[in-house]
């Protein structure tokens, strides 16, 4: 679907991403993990051609993504960001209709097909009852659902989520996760997301990509192979234990304490758990 080869990127002279190669496989859920500032969001921007690689390439089939017209990209890739700007009081329906921009002729209006599609995604994301409310009057959880509805209205095979649920409370995070899993299973929507939640990522993803602080790939593969104490120590500088929930079999990560260069534990009595 997207093939990344030898990707380098820098803001000015500060390197952000180095030597990244990976392929996004159709139908998978791939979650990007890594410490703050390691370039996760930057990688997502490169994947949708908003930024231009300093070296290497990011291709959709034969085309380099940053050279594709934005309309072409928006027909292939939809994005949900961490926070949305809602300075202007559009109704939920109007906002979701913006997702049809790339699919419409430049000066055309919404067709009946567009309208019924918009109804469908409002239903899917469970915000149909809010359709005529101004988006400025929504709660954070409702707003992220609306943003997801707009992304779905683009009808793209690939969905990029940049910490789309990380500032939501537990119930909203879980319900959006459930929705994403449903889309992935029923519609074979490919999902690439950035997250900070190890356990949820491990639970829902086919593969994890762990980025190190210097912007290199630390590990890429199935969750159990990526979330190991050795990787967490190397990338986050923490000592951690990983085991499985005896009931569900889900991976569980216990960060214990910051690791020290010499391997001993500082102030072990204060931060360690029993």
């Amino acid at each position: 679907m997207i093939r990344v080869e030898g990707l380098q990127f820098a803001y000015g002279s500060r390197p952000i991403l180095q030597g990244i190669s990976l392929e996004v496989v159709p139908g998978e859920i791939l979650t990007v993990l890594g410490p703050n500032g390691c370039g996760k969001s930057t990688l997502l921007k490169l994947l949708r051609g908003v930024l231009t690689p300093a070296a290497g390439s990011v291709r959709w089939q034969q085309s380099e993504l940053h050279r594709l017209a934005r309309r072409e990209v928006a027909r292939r890739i939809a994005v949900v960001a961490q926070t949305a700007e809602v300075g202007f009081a559009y109704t939920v329906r109007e906002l979701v209709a913006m997702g049809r921009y790339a699919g419409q002729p430049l000066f055309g209006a919404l067709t009946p097909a567009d309208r019924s599609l918009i109804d469908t995604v409002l239903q899917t994301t469970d915000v149909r009852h809010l359709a005529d409310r101004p988006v400025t009057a929504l709660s954070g959880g409702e707003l992220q659902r609306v943003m997801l509805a707009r992304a779905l209205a683009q009808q793209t095979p690939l969905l990029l989520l940049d910490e789309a649920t990380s500032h939501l409370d537990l119930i909203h995070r879980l319900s959006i996760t459930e929705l994403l899993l449903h889309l992935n299973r029923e519609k074979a929507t490919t999902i690439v997301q950035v997250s900070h939640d190890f356990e949820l990522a491990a639970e829902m993803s086919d593969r994890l990509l762990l980025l190190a602080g210097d912007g290199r790939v630390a590990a890429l593969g199935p969750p159990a192979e990526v979330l190991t104490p050795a990787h967490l120590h190397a990338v986050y500088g923490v000592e951690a234990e990983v085991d499985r929930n005896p009931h569900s079999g889900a991976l569980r990560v216990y960060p214990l304490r910051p690791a020290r260069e010499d391997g001993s534990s500082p102030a072990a009595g204060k931060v360690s758990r029993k």
Partner: protein
Amino acid sequence: MRRLARFWPFLLLMLLGGALAFSLSVGPVPLGFSELLAILRGDTSDPTGLAVVYRIRLPRSLLAALVGAALSVAGAAFQAVLRNPLADPYILGVSGGAALGAVTAIWLGFAAALLLPVAAFVGALFALLLVYWVARAHRGSSHTLILCGVIVGSLASALLLFLLWLSPADQTRAAIFWLTGNLAFADYRLLQWIAPLVLVAFLILWSASRSLDLFTQGEETAADLGLAVGRARLLVLVAAGAMTAAVVAMAGLIGFVGLTVPHIVRLLLGPAHHRLLPASALAGATFLVLADALSRQLYAPAEIPVGVVTALLGAPFFLYLLRAQRTLP
């Protein structure tokens, strides 16, 4: 309030018609409604009435309508593309450039009817292009554009003050008369040139309604939704800028219309630009026609500067709406 959504074109056209009728009937020679109707239908042989309406009041009212419409539409477009509620048509240095152009012309002694607007127009476009050219080096983000606009505006006012300081007193008065904005120089010849320009710019912006909608979501989101941000922004800036430059050249710097009218319309009809732009045009036209009529009437035969009236009329209404709605537009 959203129930207005169906009736607004009808309602706004009625209001504009009423404002125009009011504006045509007030003045040193008061005309009753029936007299006015007779004159407009051509059923009269009263030469004074004909002259007052067709030579004096109609061009002035049409100019007020055109200026009000253009400033409001340009204000709505700038607010969307810069994503800044405080943006007005003058924010990117257009006002400073126009003023400098006009005052330069006055200073050089070209106060003759047609040269002043041309100089103002050239100055406005020059300022806008300078702002765009500098901001382009930073990918033309809205912050950079606004910052450049402020700096170019300050530069223009500094040069302007210097020119005024150099000028003899009578020229200074002429310049200040122009700077505070006035509709007294209305003239069919000028209207013939400016009206089509404003109309074309309006149609360009109206056809870009959906781009403007996307701009309100932030440039990055707009790009993710499929908008070619750079090209769309240039189109909007040029269309809205040229529109502003054209009317500023005719009527000087009339404040408050371009800032307030789009906000008021947005509060009443929502922010979707396919509705906001034509509704702002009609509302802005109505507003400035009324303001002009009042500015002529309140202390007749003296005229209050129309900018004072626009602020006195608009600000309290705007504050009331803000208070009543409890959410920012």
